[in-house]
Structures are given as structure tokens and as C-alpha cells.
């Protein structure tokens, strides 16, 4: 029998071990971010700005006040959902480049339920029914949109990378058609391709009066925890990770690989659809064309920076959100276009993906395991 103290000491050391492994897992991403910001400083310098001043403005704009924090959280909300979507697919060995299209469909369906349903039913719905309905149907639209390339992958071998991209363009065309035609805001002052405003009963309330941060952010954190639980504490999660690590082994172990692939893609699309639905019901109160553009690539960068771990995704989302949010203040202070943020984020992704470069520069030894993310056309 171990004494209490021994048990305590063991728990302590296992906790320390986990802390240490988390620390070493974060080392490369942190160094990648720092290196990218250094290169970004050179870009800012070449564009005629003062990098120190620019980064100070960036930080102030991102985290300098309660309002800045609220806005960063507002930006982070869709990033967390979309980043989780891509990360979950990576865990299952699938590369979902289609988060953008799934997000757009989730948004358009949530908006439609939000503004059209009360008129169609000719009653005013209570928020307790209307809001969840809008989100759930939006989320299902995203899931369905991703399940199609999932099924094509499982049954025909059509590669999901190209198919999800094609689905993005199809979604963009469809949403353009809807927002310029049947779903266009009929308000005589409106010239933009956008839907009417959604009803009060389909809106997510804000957390603090006077700030834009809404409960969708809290939901995003909860969903991140659920994704972690699903991946590491359930049979389904085990199946997803096994298929991702080695589909042949998964098949011999009796896992239904085809089903798992479709399910993984559907859940990934569900999360991306949630990004769109929550953005409509929590922030914009309508869907506008062009809002979704760019989220697909950002989500990939976030998932990779977060090492496809839900906690990492949350941290990476807050970082990216802070950069986007603080970028406006930086532009105001130094006249450097906010687009420089895209360059820095691309560099972050470059250094995270090519961690060998970072390891070489900073003489960091490689960890034993490598993340296996995708396989070639034959996979």
C-alpha cells in the first residue's frame, strides 16, 4: 500500500509531466508566432512604418481595454468553431478546406429561419424555440454540406481536398443567388446583397450591457470542451483518431471506416456551420454576402497553430482574433494597411507547418511524435 504522501507525490509528478509536455508542445507554435512577427516587422519597416509603434497599436487594440477584450472575443467566436471544425477533420485524417462554404450555408439557413419563420407561421415565436431552431437548422445545413464530400471520399475515393473546395464555390454561387434574389433585403434603401434582419426572438443576448460580446463566445468554449471529450473519452472519438492514424489498421480492428469518414466530415461541417449560425444570431443579425470569405483559410491556420488540439485551437483563435481586432488600431496609428495581418498570419502558418525551420533556428530538439495530417491522392 502506498502512503497518502507517495500518492500525492506521484500525482504531483504526473501533473508536472503533463505541464511539461504541454509546455514543449507549445514551444514551437510560440516561437513560430514570434518569428513571424519579426519578419512582419521587416515588412512594416519596408512599407514605411515603425514596427514597434505598429505592434504597440496592435496590442492596445486587441487587449488594451475592456472594450478591446470584448471585441477580440467577438472575433474569436467564429474562429473557435471553424478552427475546431478543421482540427476535428484532421484528427480523422481528413483535410476540410470547405469550412468557408459550410459556414456560409449555416449562416444563410440561420438567417432565413431567423427572419422568415415568424412571417410564414404568422405568429411570433418565443425565443426559447426560435433561437435554438435557427441555430440547429443552420448547423445541420453545414453538416450536410460537408457530408457530401465525406461520402464521395468514402465511396468513390474522390479526394476531399478538391471536393471541399469545389463545394465552397458552389456554396458561394448559391448564396450569391439567394442573397441577390429570393432572400434579398427588400428595404428600399438597401443595395447590398444581404438578408433582412432576423427577429428579436432569434438573437443571442449579449453578456454585458454595452459590449458586443455575446453568449456565443461561452458556447464556443463549451463546444471546444465537448470536442475534446468526444475525441479522447468516447468510442467514436477513438474510432475517428484510429481511422485518421491508420485506416487499414482501423479496418482490421473492425471499425466501419466509410461510416467514420462520413461522420467525421459531417461533424466537422456541423462545427463550421455553427460558426456561421452563431455569427448571424449573435452579432450581425443577418447574413451578408462576402462575410464568409477568408474564414476557410483562417480556420486551417488556426487548427494547425493549435496543433489540432481543442485547447490549442481556442488559444490560437484568441491570438488571431486579437490580431484582426487590433489591426484597425494599428492602421489608425501607423497607416499600415490592416492586410499586413494576413501576411503575418500566413508566415505563422508557414513556420508552424515547417517546424523544422523553427527547430533549426532555435536549436530545439524534435519531439518523438509527428502529427500525421493528410495523405496524398491515393489515401
Amino acid at each position, binding site marked *: 500500500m502506498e502512503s497518502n504522501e507517495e500518492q500525492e507525490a506521484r500525482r504531483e509528478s504526473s501533473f508536472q509531466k503533463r505541464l511539461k509536455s504541454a509546455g514543449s508542445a507549445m514551444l514551437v507554435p510560440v516561437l513560430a508566432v514570434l518569428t513571424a512577427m519579426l519578419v512582419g516587422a521587416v*515588412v512594416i519597416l519596408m512599407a514605411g512604418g515603425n514596427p514597434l509603434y505598429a505592434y504597440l497599436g496592435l496590442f492596445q487594440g486587441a487587449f488594451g481595454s475592456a472594450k478591446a477584450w470584448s471585441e477580440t472575443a467577438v472575433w474569436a467566436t467564429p474562429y473557435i468553431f471553424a478552427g475546431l471544425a478543421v482540427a476535428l477533420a484532421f484528427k480523422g485524417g481528413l483535410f476540410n478546406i470547405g469550412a468557408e462554404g459550410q459556414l456560409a450555408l449555416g449562416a444563410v439557413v440561420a438567417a432565413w429561419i431567423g427572419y422568415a419563420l415568424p412571417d410564414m407561421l404568422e405568429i411570433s415565436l418565443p425565443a426559447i424555440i426560435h433561437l435554438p431552431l435557427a441555430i440547429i437548422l443552420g448547423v445541420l445545413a453545414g453538416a450536410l454540406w460537408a457530408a457530401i464530400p465525406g461520402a464521395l471520399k468514402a465511396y468513390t*475515393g474522390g479526394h476531399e481536398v478538391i471536393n471541399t473546395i469545389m463545394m465552397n464555390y458552389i456554396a458561394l454561387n448559391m448564396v450569391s443567388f439567394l442573397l441577390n434574389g429570393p432572400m434579398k433585403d427588400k428595404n428600399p434603401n438597401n443595395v447590398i446583397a444581404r438578408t433582412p434582419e432576423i427577429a428579436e426572438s432569434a438573437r443571442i443576448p449579449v453578456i454585458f450591457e454595452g459590449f458586443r460580446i455575446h453568449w456565443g463566445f461561452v458556447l464556443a468554449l463549451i463546444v471546444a470542451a465537448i470536442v475534446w471529450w468526444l475525441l479522447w473519452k468516447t468510442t467514436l472519438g477513438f474510432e475517428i483518431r484510429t481511422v485518421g492514424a491508420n485506416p487499414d489498421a482501423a479496418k482490421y480492428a473492425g471499425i466501419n471506416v466509410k461510416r467514420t469518414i462520413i461522420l467525421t466530415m459531417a461533424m466537422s461541417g456541423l462545427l463550421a456551420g455553427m460558426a456561421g449560425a452563431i455569427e448571424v444570431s449573435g452579432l450581425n443579425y443577418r447574413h451578408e454576402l462576402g462575410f464568409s470569405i*477568408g474564414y476557410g483559410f483562417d480556420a486551417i491556420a488556426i487548427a494547425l497553430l493549435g496543433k489540432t488540439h481543442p485547447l490549442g485551437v481556442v488559444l490560437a483563435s484568441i491570438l488571431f482574433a486579437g490580431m484582426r481586432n487590433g489591426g484597425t488600431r494599428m492602421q489608425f496609428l501607423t497607416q499600415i494597411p490592416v492586410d499586413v495581418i494576413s501576411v503575418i498570419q500566413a508566415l505563422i502558418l508557414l513556420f508552424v507547418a*515547417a517546424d523544422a525551420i523553427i527547430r533549426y533556428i532555435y536549436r530545439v530538439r524534435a519531439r518523438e511524435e509527428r502529427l500525421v495530417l493528410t495523405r496524398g491522392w491515393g489515401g
Partner: protein
Amino acid sequence: MDWRRFSVIALVIIILFSVVVLIGKTKDTPIVIITSLLATTIAVATPLTLGALSGIFCERSGVVNIGIEGMMLAAAFFGWLAAIYMNTIFKIAPLPSLIAGVVAAILTGGLFALLHAMLSITYKVDQIIGGTVINILAVGITGFMNRQLFFEKGSIFGGQVPHAPGVLPRIQIPFLADIPVMGRIFDQQPLTIAAILLVIVSHYVLFHTRWGLRTRAVGEHPRAADAVGINVIFMRYANVIIGGFLAGLGGAYFTLESVPSFEPLLTNGRGFIALAAMIFGNWSPFGAWAAALVFGASQAFQIKLQLFREVIPAQWAFLQNAYIVGLAPYILTMLILTGIIGKTTPPAADGVPYEK
């Protein structure tokens, strides 16, 4: 490329063209419509053809390249930038400016390809991730520089988009272009003609030269190739960079041959469709070109239907909607990838980093 694939391609093109001829017959004679459809098909297939050739060189040597989209976007931007720089700042005549633009575009493609080669060959980064990095980097850099150069007051162009030196002039192929009506097909711009010549050159290089044999050996069985003394790393680097040059030329099409302007994200997925053409063409230049022509035809179909908009009969009203007709190339791509028209086989070592 077997006869089944070619007949599917021919069938799809015939169906698309027939619809346009049926709709437009009250406005033009069928021969005029078909001629103009063919001319447009060949022209708009150019970036797809070059993108697919780019993919073939990379993948035949064993490197998956999904960064073609980004390479074309960056090349379109820097080619265009070089051309207007020459024209407005150095006051050089339009044609030499445009040629300088094409050279700049090719070099841009090569530079991005060098980065892809370093990532995937030297640093052994997952090649699909590496390609995605290229795509995101291209969007970021072109978006930033576009804003910085043309919309910021302090920039060299004074905060406005300067006049572009136009587009590359048409070249009429002697004799062929003189044929009445049908001659229009042989009246094309230089990059379109170059793309077709490059299809032939690529086929010859890949299948009839020592270089091609070595490239294919490295992509199929790098260990065996290494054992007989072929430098695997060098061959892969060289072919990825050749692919980058080709993608760069494809990017030049957008801003120097098609329309004299740049807008962010203008490649619109053409780099990915080019990959689908490469796969459908079974990694062979002629096959990829045929597949690129199908996508070109679906785009020509869309362009022509817009012109015949007012004569589209009521029961076909959905064809009036640009968004719905615009779906054609994307849906076609997905159908082709399902393999219902026969499976294709990638090079055996495609996407696998070589470890000595």
C-alpha cells in the same frame, strides 16, 4: 488516356455547345456560334492547361502541389505589377512592358515553387499542408501589396490604380486564320498559343527524353532511381520549379492576356480545377489538355449564354441566371473526381518525401 475518356470529353463538349446553338439560333448561324464557342473554349482553358502541366511536372517527380492556385494568383499580381511599373514609371512602350510582365510572372511562379520545394523536399512538411501555406501566403501578400501600392496615398502610384498597358495582342496563325468564319479559332493571344505548344513540348520531354525518364523514375520509385545514380532531390527540386514557371505563365494569363486589371482572389479556384484536369488526364499532358478543354467549354457555355440572355426560352429560364450556370465547372470537377469515368493512378511515390 483511353478512348473512353476522350469520348466522354467530346460528348460533354457537344452537349454544352448544342444547348447554346439551340438557344442562339435565332441570333446567329450555328457555324458562327460554334466557331466563337471553340475560340473562347481554347482561350479560357489556357490557365487550366498551364496549371495542369505544372501539376504534372511536380507530381510526376513525386511532389503533390495544391499550391498552384496561390502560385497563379501571385504570378498574376506580380506580372501585372511589373508591366504597369515598366509602363508608367519607366515609360516603356506597352508591348515590351507586357513581355516584362510575363517574365516577372514566370519568375514569381518559380520563386513560390522554390518555397514549396524547400518545404516538401528538404523540410519534409506534409505536402498538402505546404501547398495550403503557399495559397494562404499568396492571398496575404497580394492583398497587402495591392492595398499598399494602389490605395495608400504615399505609395509610388499615388494611391490610385494606374492605367495598365493593355493586354497581349492577338497573333493570327498564317493561312489558318485566313479561313472564312472558322479562321477565328486560329486568331488567339500568345499565351494561349504558348500553352498548346507547351502541351506538346511537355509530352515530348516527359516521355521521349532522358530527363523525362528520370523524372518519372523519381516519382515512381525513388529508391531504385537513387540506386542507379539519379539525384532524387535535384530532380524533384528542378521539376517543382519547372512546374512553378508553368503556373506563373498560367497566372500571367489573368492579368496580361485576359483582362488588364487585378483584383484580390481573381484566380477563383482555377488552380484547383487545373488539378482535377491533371487527375482526369491521368497525369499526361494531352489528357490534361483535353480535360482542361471541357472546363473551358463549360466556361464558354456560361459566357455565351449571358450574351444570348434575352432569347432564352421561358421553360429554360434557369439558364438566364449567371449564378446557376456558373456552377457547371465546379459540379463537373466533382463528377470527374468520383471516378465514374474510370479510375486513374497517380505516380506511385506521389506525395511521399524521400528519405535516404
